[in-house]
């Protein structure tokens, strides 16, 4: 399997706050990677650096053979290849579900409207929301909104999907809905990096678990590291849940 | 009765627009001067009253009388039949000419020649009314709220024809000699009078009497000569006899 994402000793500072302190890891095609760690350990920042929502200070990142932090990078082609879903959904509130999903294909890929609509219906069906195409985001529950956000990313047919705590704003039942969609995507072979607090889910779907601590990859390995942590920090982190 | 009220208050409230040169204006030291101002001063002095100048605007002269904000109006107030329906006028104390002013080269001898021209006038004055009556439809009339703005429009070249008093045409030439404005023809000769509320016959009689007296003794003529550099015409003086 080829490498889709590679971070090499990435450093990132916000002013004096040294948030990423030499982060390196690699993700192969079709792999599902779960990033876990305490609040403030730099998980989101790492994710955001991967599709260049943040600039890095040192190190290198390559994604689908784009040198992400090179000067000449064409940001738009990078973003066609990388989809990202946020905790707060970030759906466009003034557009219907359908318009949210077709916006990318029509405006970026210049897809004809009819084709984009078919595509949108297709991804909506995949996330189990084919009947909500004409609804507006505020008419949907949190779980449904999150699934639309996933559908919106999927419609761009990315090679890599990033998920940043996509379920932490949801109650257990809605969380279940969203996790099911993600599990199915994983089964279909999508390459995924997910920041998550759902240890159970990480155990079940992740091929690789990365535990971040103080801006570093502190421990890394198969999901079994959650059950046999090598470091005291991971042991404590896994222990805090109820 | 208005006259009794005035005498009791020992004060004559005269409404004047403070900026209609040369009838009323402020000099460099901000002293109020002008022919109407001196007329009002003379009248108050002769009546043995203190003069209180109530600043007004041309469009507000009638309402000021109607709502009793002033006792009389002495402010370039021409006698017209329309006005006479709602207020009373004294005997006229001075004339005012409505002339059409335009650059030297322009051929304008009659209202018909205004066709297609940009003509300006000050809104709400008799100038405006006379112009509106006679102007051909193809003339574009633009109206401003006061003479100063009309003047600015003339000086800055916004318009080429101005319906106004001869004095103001001179001022345009002083400001901008290149415009070379001259008086083309007289549209109307109006009579200026003191305006007062309808039905105040005792006050009107007193003022009429005062105007006749001062036309006869030459005081009003002196004031007119000082600001307009001309003598009062015979028809006005005839009223004094």
């Amino acid at each position, binding site marked *: 399997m080829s490498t889709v994402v590679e971070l090499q000793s990435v450093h990132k500072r916000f002013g004096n706050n040294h948030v990423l302190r030499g982060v390196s890891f690699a993700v192969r095609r079709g792999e599902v990677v779960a990033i876990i760690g305490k609040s403030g350990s730099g998980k989101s920042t790492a994710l955001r650096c991967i599709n260049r929502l943040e600039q890095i200070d040192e190190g290198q990142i390559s994604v689908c053979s784009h040198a992400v932090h090179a000067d000449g990078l064409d940001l738009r082609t990078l973003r066609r290849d990388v989809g990202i879903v946020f905790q707060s959904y970030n759906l466009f509130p003034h557009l219907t579900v359908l318009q949210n999903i077709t916006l990318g294909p029509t405006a970026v890929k210049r897809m004809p409207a009819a084709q984009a609509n078919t595509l949108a219906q297709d991804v909506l069906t995949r996330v189990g929301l084919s009947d909500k195409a004409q609804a507006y985001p505020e008419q949907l529950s949190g779980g449904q909104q999150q699934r639309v956000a996933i559908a919106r990313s999927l419609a761009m047919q990315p090679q890599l999907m990033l998920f940043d705590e996509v379920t932490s704003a949801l109650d257990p039942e809605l969380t279940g809905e969203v996790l099911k969609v993600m599990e199915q995507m994983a089964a279909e072979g999508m390459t995924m990096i997910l920041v998550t607090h759902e240890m159970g889910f990480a155990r079940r779907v992740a091929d690789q678990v990365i535990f971040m601590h103080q801006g570093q990859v502190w421990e890394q390995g198969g999901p079994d590291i959650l059950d046999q942590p090598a470091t005291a920090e991971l042991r404590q982190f896994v222990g805090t849940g109820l | 009765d208005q006259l009794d009220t005035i005498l009791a208050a020992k004060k004559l409230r005269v409404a004047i627009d*403070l*900026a*209609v*040169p040369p009838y009323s*204006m*402020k*000099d*460099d*030291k*901000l002293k109020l001067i002008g022919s109407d101002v001196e007329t009002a001063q003379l009248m108050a002095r002769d009546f043995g009253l203190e003069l209180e100048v109530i*600043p*007004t*605007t041309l469009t*507000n002269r009638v*309402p000021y009388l*109607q*709502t*009793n*904000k002033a006792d009389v109006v002495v402010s370039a107030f021409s006698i017209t039949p329309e006005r006479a329906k709602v207020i009373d006028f004294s005997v006229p104390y001075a004339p005012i000419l409505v002339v059409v002013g335009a650059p030297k080269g322009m051929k304008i001898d009659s209202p018909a020649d205004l066709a297609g021209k940009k003509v300006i006038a000050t809104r709400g004055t008799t100038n405006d009314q006379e112009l509106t009556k006679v102007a051909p439809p193809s003339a574009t009339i633009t109206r401003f*709220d*006061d*003479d*100063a*703005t009309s*003047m*600015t429009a003339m*000086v800055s070249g916004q318009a080429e024809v101005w319906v106004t008093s001869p004095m103001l045409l001179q*001022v345009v030439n002083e*400001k901008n000699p290149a415009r070379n404005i001259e008086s083309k023809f007289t549209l109307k000769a109006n009579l200026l009078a003191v305006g007062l509320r309808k039905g105040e016959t005792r006050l009107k009689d007193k003022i009429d009497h005062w105007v006749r007296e001062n036309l006869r003794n030459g005081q009003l003529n002196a004031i007119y000569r000082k600001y307009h550099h001309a003598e009062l015409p015979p028809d006005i003086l005839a009223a004094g006899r």
Partner: protein
Amino acid sequence: MSHEQFLSLLQGAWGTLLLSTLTLTLGAVLGLSLALARVSPRRAVRRLASGWMQLIQGTPLLVLMGVCFYGPALLGVGTVEALPAATSAMVIYASAFLGDIWRGCIQAVHKSQWEAAECIGLTRWQRMRMIVLPQALRMATPPTVGFAVQVIKNTSVASLVIGFAELSYNAKVLNNSTFQPFLYFGGAALLYFAMCYPLSRWSRVLERKLHVHRG
């Protein structure tokens, strides 16, 4: 511009400031009452207040001036001087707008704050006074200061109808006697700017502070 003429402009500016200050203080009192009436539990009071505000907000200030200046005499109540007439027109105008601004701020205080206050047993008036108004006030400062700028500029309308001697009026009188519009109106513009700009600036600074507060 002679010394006296410049002084006359300054005097006009003083008239403008005087009228603005009167307008804002009296308008604030009336505006607050209107704002409170707009959030009253009684439907009739709310309707009345909102009808009144819409009426005023749909009327040019010029017309309000006319009504306040001539109205009393027409109704046979007697004449009013220029300053009281101008002040009342401006106060009516300002209170409608301030009332609207403040109603918005009161309603922007989150409903949960009302509930929390209710749950510890505060009376309606205590809730308004101790919980809602202090928070609304903080939000209201920038738009209120911004509106003060409008008031200062709009006092110029007072001279158009009433002949109240404020800055535009004095500039106009000077110009009408001397015919140097750019000199006098330019001077007036500078004075207006000098009065308004600090307020605009201040309102903006306040606004920024508020956003920082909200995080």
